[in-house]
């Protein structure tokens, strides 16, 4: 290999990269906020007694889980403006697409969490005369959150990685900036390596947190 | 405690001499260098002995069996088998010195530990084929014969998940017997079973007893202990506190700790 590495030119692009990084962080944070909250609501609706509520919600979940995220993003960017005759700024649109995708995956995580709550606890709630919303808020939510937490975090990290896909529809996130720099400077090797490293380092603390959670849960199980 | 004390039950004239079967000499074992479970333990077992080990929970009964099976190391002392070195403590840990002697010992566990991906027959023939290099046909024939003796002839092609607890445990016994061991170790083999299945497993063990199989049995079932044992050993605090014939230990325990323990468990029953 006789390639001459040159990382030096990247220092001049720092502000572009930071700008992109900020967009990526916004996408990740907002979509996660949406996914964590709406995911739980969707999960409850998908487990509802009423078929007319349950079925559409289940379809929503399965559809988002069984199609490519890239397609979902492209669909939102091209079809929403046509279908609803609205203009939405790209970052909001990105948050919407990524957030709804995460909502579907998180709903599944919550469902697994709720199903891990022992049947006896539901009986106990009835015996204690707790109202249905009290049962959900004080008994089901805390326990299922505990089981679901590692999965929610993992989903959150993969969402950050998936957020790179908005670059394909020209949202100026970290990936998009990297792509433009790589093309402008004819230096894909250095640029993409740096971008990959940034994504990797951002995910690192959170995946570490997941490990800690899982280990603690294993320990709790043994008790 | 020295070896001479240990042999309480005088053997009949034709039995093997002391020190010729399993012999533990001053065995020391601790988990993580701090939890002592065998504290200079001496034990002498003859080929016609059926030892039942009793003692409080956590007194190291399972540990003793696991050491004899080579599943756990010891940090001090030696174990002989047939007068030859079987397990030696070296460099603060131990190893099974003789694979040949190891293959003369079989063990049955509390939780069956059958191989879930193999059928009953698959479980039985794996070790004789792979360890002793026997041919498949003779192993299968032998397996069938054994299963028939244990009342399991119609379960040959079942997977373990399709069997009841009692059936699983009998298959586990058959699997160990396939290797024709001289000594069988049973660690609370009925305590995971529903009450109605306990008898079918205990009957198989009584069958083996009638055939003079040497056994070491850990159980909390004092009634069964009394029935099957030639010698009862009470362990506590890493030491053998008392041993003797079932009548001696159950009928007239000498040590206060034995009495206390028996009072507790017999009251529960």
């Amino acid at each position: 290999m006789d390639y001459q590495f040159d990382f030096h030119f990247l220092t001049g692009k720092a502000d572009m990269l930071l700008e992109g990084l900020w967009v990526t962080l916004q996408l990740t944070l907002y979509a996660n906020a949406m996914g964590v909250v709406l995911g739980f609501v969707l999960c409850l609706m998908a487990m509802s007694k009423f078929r007319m509520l349950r079925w559409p919600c289940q379809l929503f979940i399965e559809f988002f889980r069984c199609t490519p995220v890239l397609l979902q993003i492209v669909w939102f960017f091209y079809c929403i403006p046509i279908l609803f005759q609205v203009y939405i700024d790209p970052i909001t649109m990105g948050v919407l697409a990524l957030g709804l995708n995460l909502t579907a995956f998180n709903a599944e995580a919550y469902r697994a969490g709720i199903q891990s709550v022992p049947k006896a606890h539901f009986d106990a709630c009835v015996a204690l005369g707790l109202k249905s919303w009290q049962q959900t808020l004080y008994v089901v939510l805390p326990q299922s959150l505990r089981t679901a937490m590692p999965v929610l975090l993992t989903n959150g990290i993969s969402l950050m990685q998936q957020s790179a896909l908005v670059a394909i529809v020209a949202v100026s996130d970290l990936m998009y900036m990297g792509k433009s720099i790589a093309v402008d400077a004819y230096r894909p090797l250095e640029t993409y390596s740096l971008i990959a490293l940034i994504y990797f380092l951002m995910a690192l603390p959170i995946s570490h947190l997941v490990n800690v959670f899982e280990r603690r849960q294993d320990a709790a199980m043994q008790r | 405690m020295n070896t001479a004390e240990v042999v309480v039950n005088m053997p009949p004239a034709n039995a093997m001499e002391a020190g010729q079967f399993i012999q533990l000499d001053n065995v020391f074992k601790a988990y993580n260098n701090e939890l002592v479970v065998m504290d200079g333990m001496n034990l002498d077992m003859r080929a016609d002995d059926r030892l039942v080990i009793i003692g409080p929970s956590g007194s190291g009964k399972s540990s003793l069996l696991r050491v004899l099976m080579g599943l756990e190391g010891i940090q001090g002392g030696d174990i002989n088998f047939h007068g030859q070195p079987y397990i030696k403590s070296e460099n603060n840990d131990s190893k099974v010195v003789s694979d040949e002697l190891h293959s003369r010992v079989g063990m049955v566990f509390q939780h069956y530990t059958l191989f879930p991906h193999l059928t009953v027959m698959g479980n039985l023939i794996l070790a004789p084929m792979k360890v002793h290099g026997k041919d498949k046909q003779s192993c299968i024939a032998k397996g069938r014969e054994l299963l028939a003796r244990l009342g399991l002839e119609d379960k040959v092609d079942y997977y373990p998940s399709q069997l009841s607890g009692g059936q699983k445990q009998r298959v586990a016994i058959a699997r160990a017997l396939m290797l024709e061991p001289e000594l069988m170790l049973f660690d609370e083999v009925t305590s995971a079973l529903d009450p109605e299945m306990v008898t079918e497993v205990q009957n198989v063990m009584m069958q083996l007893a009638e055939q003079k199989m040497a056994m070491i049995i850990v159980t909390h079932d004092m009634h069964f202990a009394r029935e099957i044992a030639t010698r009862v050993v009470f362990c506590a605090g890493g030491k053998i506190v008392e041993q003797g014939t079932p009548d001696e230990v159950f009928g007239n325990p000498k040590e206060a700790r034995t009495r206390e323990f028996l009072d507790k468990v017999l009251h529960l029953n």
Partner: protein
Amino acid sequence: MEIDFSIIWPYMPVLMQGLWVTVAITLGCAIAGSLLGFVVSLGRMVNNVLVSGALKLYVEFFRGTPLLIQLFWIFFCFPVVLGISIPPYVSVIISLTLYMGAITSETFRGSLKSIEQEQHDACTALGLKHSTKVIYIIFPQALLRAIPPLLSNIVSLFKESALISSVGIADLMFIGQNISNSTAHPVEFLTTVAIIYFVVAFPLTRLVGYVESRMLTRYAI
């Protein structure tokens, strides 16, 4: 603007061609990646720090960075580093295989580690040699346990493979997007493409559940 789904029919054969490319690349990379993943999972148990460390870095990196960058990196940088030109489809096959290898190695590692200590004890009690234990007891059980998560990994790969459209491979996503651009009917075509992906992926996710429950009743593992 009128929404009219009947315009998609003439394009169905082309879309099916795209689906074929997607399925072929998914299957090829799933098989190659799973083999790689199995070897990697074993390599990570080796007592050599250098080997297990390097493999860990590989796995963490491919799991911790966006697949899109991996695709771009291998597409644009491999040729530069190696000084040879690589055809696009070879490049994406390398990417997806390396990605799948990293993902499945974790699946196999999990299933190998999930074999209980009791099974190892039973092998020792029967006097089985280490190699016999691994080949006849550990591997079969670990592989059986790995089947459902492995199927899930393959479904994920099927979806993720849509990214190869971004480097110009004519898969289902690429063709769908091209037609939607050239006909200016994104709603009809993108929705159709989504339904095609769904129709393939959804039954597979159900299959995972079915296989899992079969395993449970048959082997209790």
